[in-house]
C-alpha cells in the first residue's frame, strides 16, 4: 500500500516539473537576426523597389489618379465608385481602390525605405561606396513616394504625416503641410544625388541613378515654382556631366515596348516582367508575386479589358492640327491611341488587339478614344495583369520639356534656348519646328508657355504627368483655368476650386490620428 502511494506520488512529481513551452519558428527569419550583412542590406533595398508591383502604386491605381483624374482621361467604368473618383465625386473617403490603397502603399514603401535607412548604416561594408549606393537608392525611393503623397494629398493644412524612422503600431505622427513634405523630398534627393552613380552596370539597370535623382528633384522644385533651382538640376542632365548618359531614342515607340527597354532615353524606368505567370498575386505574402504591369488589362478597349479608363477626344484633334515633315500625321498619335479613323490616318494601323476596324460600328466603341500607350497589342492579341512592359517614369523627352519650361519661366531665361529644346523633341518624331505652325510661341514667353502645355500633352500624355502639370500651371486654381479644363473634360464640371486639387485624406486616418487635419473643404 505504502509502496503504491510512493509510486503514485513520484510519478506525479515527474509531471509536475515545469515543461518547456518555448517554440522556435521554423518558417521565417526574425527581424532581430536580420540586417547584419551586405546581402541583407541589398535585399532590404530590393524590397523597396518591390512596392512598384503593388496595385496601389505603379502597377495599377496610380494611373487612375494621375491620368484619368486629369483632363487627358476619364472613366466610364460600370463600377460607379471607381469612376466617381476620377471625376471629383468623392463620397466615401476610405474607398480602398480609389484613395486608401494608394495612400497605404505609398506609406508602406516609405516604411521599407525607413527600415533600410535605419539599419544599413550599422552594417559593416567592405567598400563604403557600395553602402552609399544602397542608401542613395533608399533616399531616392523614399523621396519618390513622398513626392506622390505631396502631389496627391498635400495642402496648406497639416494633413500629411512625415515618417522617417521604422514604425511602431501605436504611432500617431503629427501632420504637416505640403511645403514641409517638399522640403523632405528635396533633402532626401540631395543625399541621393551625392550617393548614387551616374549609371549602373547591365545587371543593375533599373536602379536609381544620379540623373534620376536630379530629375525628380527638378520635378519637386517645379511644383513649387522654384524655376531657378529646378533649372540647375536639369542642367546637369541636359548640358552637364549627365548629358553623356542620355539622348532621345530613335523611335518614339521604343519607349513603350518590352523589346527596347532601358534605352538611351530612359532616366528612371520601373522594371516589369512576366516571369511569374498567372495566377501570381500581388500580395505581400505571395510566393513568386506578380511582377507584371496591370495597366493594360484596365485600360484595354471593350472586349479585351475592363476599359475603366479612356481618353478625351481633344488630344486626337490637337494632333491632327499639324502634319509632319512627310505630310503625314504625328506618329505619336498612332502610338498613343485607338480611335475611329486610325486606319485612314496611318498605314497598317487597322488592328486593335484581335479586333478589326468593324468594331467602330458597335455602340460600345463609337465616338470613343482608347489608350494605347503601354498596351501589349503590338505583340499579342489580348492583354492581362502580367504585362512585361517597363514603365519609363521619367524619360529624357520629359527632362527636355521641363528644362524648357524652367528657362521660359525664369526672368533671365533665354526663350530661344527653350524653343530649341522643344524643337529637339519634335524633331525626333519628324514634326516641324515650333515656329512653323505656332509662330506666336517663339516670340513671347507667355505664348510659349501656353503652347508648351499642349506640347507636353502631345509627347507625354497618359504617362502619369498631366495631373502634376495641370496643378503646376494653376489651371485648377482659377476660374479661367477651370473653364479651359471643362472644355476638354466634362469631369471637371464637378470640380470645386480650393477643394478638389487634392484628394481627401482617408477618414480612418483622420479619425484615428488627432495630429492630422483633413484637407480644406473636406
Amino acid at each position, binding site marked *: 500500500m505504502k509502496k503504491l502511494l510512493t509510486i503514485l506520488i513520484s510519478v506525479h512529481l515527474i509531471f509536475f516539473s515545469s515543461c518547456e513551452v518555448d517554440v522556435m519558428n521554423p518558417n521565417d527569419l526574425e527581424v532581430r537576426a536580420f540586417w547584419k550583412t551586405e546581402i541583407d542590406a541589398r535585399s532590404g533595398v530590393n524590397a523597396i523597389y518591390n512596392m512598384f508591383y503593388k496595385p496601389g502604386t505603379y502597377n495599377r491605381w496610380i494611373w487612375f489618379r494621375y491620368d484619368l483624374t486629369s483632363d487627358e482621361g476619364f472613366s466610364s467604368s460600370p463600377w460607379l465608385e471607381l469612376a466617381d473618383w476620377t471625376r471629383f465625386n468623392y463620397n466615401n473617403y476610405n474607398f480602398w481602390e480609389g484613395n486608401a490603397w494608394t495612400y497605404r502603399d505609398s506609406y508602406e514603401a516609405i516604411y521599407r525605405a525607413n527600415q533600410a535607412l535605419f539599419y544599413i548604416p550599422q552594417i559593416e561594408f567592405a567598400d563604403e561606396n557600395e553602402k552609399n549606393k544602397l542608401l542613395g537608392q533608399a533616399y531616392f525611393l523614399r523621396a519618390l513616394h513622398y513626392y506622390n503623397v505631396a502631389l496627391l494629398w498635400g495642402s496648406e493644412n497639416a494633413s500629411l504625416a512625415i515618417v522617417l524612422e521604422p514604425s511602431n503600431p501605436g504611432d500617431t505622427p503629427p501632420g504637416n503641410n505640403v511645403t514641409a513634405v517638399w522640403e523632405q523630398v528635396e533633402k532626401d534627393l540631395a543625399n541621393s544625388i551625392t550617393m548614387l552613380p551616374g549609371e549602373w552596370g547591365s545587371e543593375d539597370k533599373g*536602379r536609381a541613378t544620379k540623373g534620376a535623382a536630379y530629375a525628380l528633384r527638378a520635378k519637386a522644385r517645379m511644383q513649387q515654382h522654384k524655376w531657378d533651382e529646378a533649372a540647375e538640376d536639369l542642367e546637369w542632365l541636359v548640358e552637364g556631366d549627365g548629358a553623356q548618359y542620355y539622348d532621345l531614342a530613335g523611335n518614339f515607340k521604343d519607349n513603350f515596348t518590352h523589346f527596347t527597354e532601358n534605352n538611351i532615353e530612359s532616366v528612371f524606368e520601373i522594371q516589369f516582367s512576366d516571369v511569374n505567370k498567372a495566377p501570381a498575386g500581388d500580395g505581400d505574402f505571395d510566393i513568386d508575386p506578380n511582377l507584371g504591369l496591370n495597366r493594360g488589362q484596365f485600360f484595354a478597349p471593350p472586349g479585351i479589358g475592363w476599359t475603366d479608363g479612356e481618353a478625351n477626344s481633344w488630344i486626337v484633334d490637337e494632333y491632327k492640327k499639324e502634319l509632319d515633315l512627310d505630310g503625314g500625321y504625328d506618329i505619336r498619335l498612332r502610338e498613343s491611341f485607338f480611335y475611329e479613323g486610325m486606319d485612314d490616318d496611318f498605314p497598317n494601323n487597322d488592328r486593335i488587339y484581335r479586333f478589326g476596324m468593324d468594331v467602330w460600328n458597335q455602340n460600345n466603341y463609337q465616338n470613343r478614344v482608347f489608350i494605347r500607350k503601354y498596351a501589349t497589342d503590338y505583340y499579342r492579341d489580348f492583354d492581362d495583369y502580367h504585362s512585361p512592359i517597363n514603365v519609363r517614369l521619367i524619360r529624357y523627352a520629359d527632362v527636355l520639356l521641363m528644362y524648357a519650361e524652367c528657362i521660359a519661366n525664369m526672368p533671365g531665361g533665354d526663350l530661344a534656348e527653350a524653343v530649341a529644346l522643344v524643337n529637339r523633341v519634335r524633331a525626333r518624331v519628324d514634326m516641324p519646328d515650333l515656329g512653323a505652325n505656332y509662330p506666336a510661341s517663339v516670340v513671347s514667353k507667355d505664348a510659349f508657355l501656353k503652347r508648351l502645355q499642349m506640347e507636353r500633352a502631345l509627347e507625354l500624355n497618359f504617362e502619369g504627368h498631366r495631373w502634376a502639370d495641370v496643378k503646376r500651371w494653376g489651371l485648377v486654381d482659377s476660374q479661367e483655368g477651370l473653364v479651359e479644363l471643362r472644355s476638354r473634360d466634362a469631369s471637371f464640371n464637378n470640380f470645386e476650386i480650393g477643394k478638389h486639387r487634392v484628394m481627401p485624406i482617408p477618414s480612418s486616418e483622420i479619425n484615428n490620428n488627432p495630429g492630422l487635419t483633413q484637407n480644406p473643404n473636406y
Partner: protein
Amino acid sequence: MKNTLLLMLLMIPFSIFAQTGIVTGRVVDSSNMPIPGVNVVIQGTAEGVITDLDGNYSVNVENEQVLVFSFIGMETQSIQYIGQIELNVVLFETLSSLDEVVVIGYQTVRKADLTGAVSIFNPDDMKSAVVTGGVADALVNIPGVFVRTEGKPGAEGTIEIRGTKSFGSSQPLYVIDGIAVEGGANRDFNFNDVESVQVLKDASAAAIYGSRAANGVIIITTKKGSEGPMKIEISSKTSLQTLPRYNLTNREEWISLNDMAHVNNGFPLANHSDGDTDWQDETFKTGVVQDYNISFSGGSNSGNYFMSANYQTNSGTTIGTESTRMTLRSNTSAKKEFGNAVVLTVGENIAVSNYRIDELDTNPIIDVYRMLPTISVYNENNPGGYGYGDGSQDVTFGTNPVAKEALTTTENQNLRVRGNVFTELAVYDKIRYKFNLGFETSSDEHMFLRKVGNWSYNQPIDPSSLTKNKARFNSMVYDNTLEYNDKIGAHSINAVVGTSFMDISYEQLWGTKNDVMSLSDGTYYEQLNAAQGDPRTGGFRDLEKLFSVFGRVNYNYADRYLMSFTIRRDASSKFGPDNRNGLFPSISGAWRISNERFFNSSVINDLKVRANYGVLGSSNIGVWDWIAFINSFPQAVFGNPENIEIGQTQVRLVNTDLRWEELHQMNIGLDLTMLRNRLDLSLEYFNSETQDVLTGMQILMSTGNSGGNPNVNAASLKNTGIEASITWRDRKGDWGYSINTNITSLKNEILELGYDREFFTQWNTRSYVGEPIGEWYLIETDGLFRSMEQVFAHVDQNGNMIQPNAQPGDIRYVDANEDGVITDADRVHSGSPWPKLQLGANASVQWKGIDLQVQLAGAFGHKVFNGPRSGFDRFDDNSNYRADYDAWSPDNPNAKDPRPIYQDSRNTRGDQDRWLEDGSYLRVKQMALGYSLPSSMLGEVADQVRLFINAQNLITITGYTGLDPEFRNSSIWERGFDYGAFPNPKAFSFGAQITF
C-alpha cells in the same frame, strides 16, 4: 407416516400466508424492459438484494415489512409485504433531475451540488434530425448560448456563449471525454456517439480550464457500454432540404425596369441579350442528407464496450458542393480489483473519421441575383462555353455560378484519428489517480483545379492550374490528476489537483503548376506531373505548447452549504517569455435553503442560491504573433537582360508585449424545483469584464503596415446578462409531457478601445466607448421626393438646397449635422444588431408509442442590414431586380421605391438606412412526430422500433425580407450584416431507429 404427510399438507396452505416468506418477482421499466441492478431493500434494515440481468429478484421478507425498490434515475417505490409470493414491479423514470450527474472538468458532481452555471443538453432533442456540422450547431436551446449555422455541406456554425467577450474568435473550448481538444467537435465528429453535453458558462465552472475557458467550455461525453447483453442500435435518417428563394424579376419584368433605368438617365436602351434564365432554378436544388448509424454496446461488471460506425452524405442544396463522411468509434474500459481497496481501470476512446467534401467555389446566394435573366447559361462563343453577358448587350460583372462551379473544383479530405487512452487507480474510493493521454492526428488534403474558361465578363484569359496541399496536424495532451474524495460526518470534500501539457504541431506542404493536361472529353488530370509549367511550391509549420497546473476543492456541509475554490496557472508559447504565465483563480458558493431546518414547504422540493466569481483567460491569436519577422517573399526585377532579385523587409508590424486576455466574471443564480419535482426554475445574472482584450486594432496607414493589423492588448469589454429557464414535466397515466422555455437577455459594452481611441468605424457600423460593439450608423432617409416643389423645399438653415441635383423619385436624405450637404458626417445611430431578447423552447409529448416534439427559437429587438437587397435595389450597375419593385415614375407618383437610374449612384449609396430592417423572428426549428411500435408486434427479436418524421425550419414568423433572419455573420463588428450568408434550409426529415 401418513400423519406426517397430512400435517405437511395442512402446513402448505399456511406457508403461503406465513409470517416469513420468500418473495420473487421481476422489475421492469415503463417500456417493459428488465432493469438489472435495482436495489430491493427491506425498509428499516440492512437486508436486501439486487435484481439480476433479467430484472429478477428473490428475497426473504417478514410479514408487514416494506420492500423498497430503488434505482438511480427511477422513482423509488415502497410496497408492503402482505404475503405475496410473486411481486412484479414497474419502475418509472424519475421526474427529478437533481440526481443527474454532471461532468465539470476533471470531476463529476451531482447537478444538485453545482455551484456554477452549467447547462445540460440532451442529445435526444436531436433524435429526429441530422446534425451535419459541429456538435455546437445543435445547441440551439441553451440559455446564454448564441448559435448560427449555414445550410451548405461542410459548414460549421458560429457559437457564442454569454456574449462577445473578445474581438477574436468566440469559439469555446471543447473537452471530449476529459481531453481538451484544440480543433473542437467539428464536422468530423459523429453526433450519434454523443451521450451528454454540458455547457460551462461561468467562471467557477470553467475555471479549471483557466486559460482557454474565457469563451465557455463545452464538455462532451461519448457513449459507453452499460452492463448487460449486447445492445445493437441501428438508425437511418434522411433529410430533404431546400433553400428559401428570392423573388426576382423574370426576363420581361427585368427588361422593363432596365429600360426605365436607362431612360431615366438619358441613356439609349440597352441591346438586350436573348436569354431567358431563372438563375435560382439553375443553381438551387433539393439537397438530400443521409445518415446511417449502427452501434454495438454492452458490458459486464468488470468492463464495457461501445462500438459504432456511421456513414453520412450531403448532396448539397446548390450545385457544385457535396460531402461524404465515414466514422468508426471504439470505446472500451475495464477494471480489475486488487482486494477491497484498490481498483485499476484502463480504457480508451478512439474515433476514426474520413470526411471528403467538394467545397462550394462560388457564393450562389449572391451570384443568382448578380446574373441577369436575359443572359443564357451557355454561350459557345465564350472561352469555356458559358454565358455571362458581353459589352455590347446587357453587361454585368457578376459570376455565372454554373460556369464557375464547372470550371473550378475545390476538394478537401480529412482523415482524422482522435481519442484518448487512460488509466486510473482508485484507492478505497477516496484517492484516485488518473493519467489521461489525449491524441489527435489528422491528415488533410486539399486540391484546387482551375480549368480553362471564363465565368465573368472581361476576365483575363488565365491558364489552367492545379494546386495541391497536404497537411498534417498532431496534438498530444498529457493530463495527470489526483482526486481525493472523503466524507466525515456531515462534511464532505472532493478535491482534485493535476497538470496538463499540450503539444500541437501543424505542417503544410503545397505545390502548384499551370497548364494542366486534359482529355478531349474535357476531363482534366489531377496530378501535378500532368501539369506542364510554372511550378511553385512552399510549406510551413506551426507549433504551440501549453503547460498548466491546476487544482480545485469542493466542500459540502450537510448538503446545505457548498463551496468551491479553483486555481490554475498556465504557460503558453504564444506569448513572449516575460508574458507567458497566467494565473486564473475562482471561488464560488451555494446555499441549499431547502435543506435548512427552518425551511418547510410542501410545494418546494429544492431551493438553492449560488454565487461565484473568477478569472479566466484567453489567447485566441496566432502562434507567432508576438515576434517581428522578416518577409522574404518580395522580388524585384533589374538588369538588361532582366533578372529577379529577392527583397527582404519587415512587412507586418508587431506588438512584442502581447499577454493573456483576462475575463473577470461574476455570476449569481437561483435553482428552484417544486411541485413534486415537476417544475424546475433556474435564474442567472452575470456580469463579466474582459481586460487586455487581444485585438487586431486598426492602426494608421501612415505606419506602412501591411498583412493585417497587429494584435495588441488594447481593449476592455463588458458583458452582462440575465438567463431564465423553466421546465415543466409530468406524467399522467399513458401521457407524459415536458415543456422547457428559456430566455436570455445579453448586453455588451465597450469600456476601452485601445490606442486611446474614442470610437472605431467599420463600414456601416461604429463602436463607441460606452456603447455596444458595432452599432449601426447610417444616413437617415426620409422617403422620396415626389415633386420638384419637395426638392426645392428641402433646404438648410440658410435656405440652400441640400440636394440640388435631386429629381422627383429620388431619395430624400436627412442632413443630420445641418451643414447643407449629405456626407459621411450625417451618419447617425440607427439601431443595434444585438437582440434584446433571445428565446428558445422545446416541448415534447408522449402517449403510448407516439412522441411529438416541437422546438422553437427566436430573437427580438435587433436591426439587420439586408445586403442582398441593397445589391438588387441598385440600378447603377446591372443586376437582377426585385419582382415587387414599385418604381416611382410620373405615372406612379406614390410609389414606394425610388426611380431606377442607370449609372447613377445618388439613390444607392451604401451607408443609407433604407435596407436596415427589423431582424426579429420566431422560428419553429423542429416539429417531429415519432411512433414506437408496440412491443407486442416486436416479439423476441427487437426491443424497440421507432419511426419518425420531422419538419424543420418550415415556419418562420418575421418581418425580415431577406432569405433567413437566422443568418450567420461571425464578424463582431458587423454582426447584423447579411452579406448574402448561406441561409438555413427548410427540411423534411424521416427515418427509423431499431434497437436489439
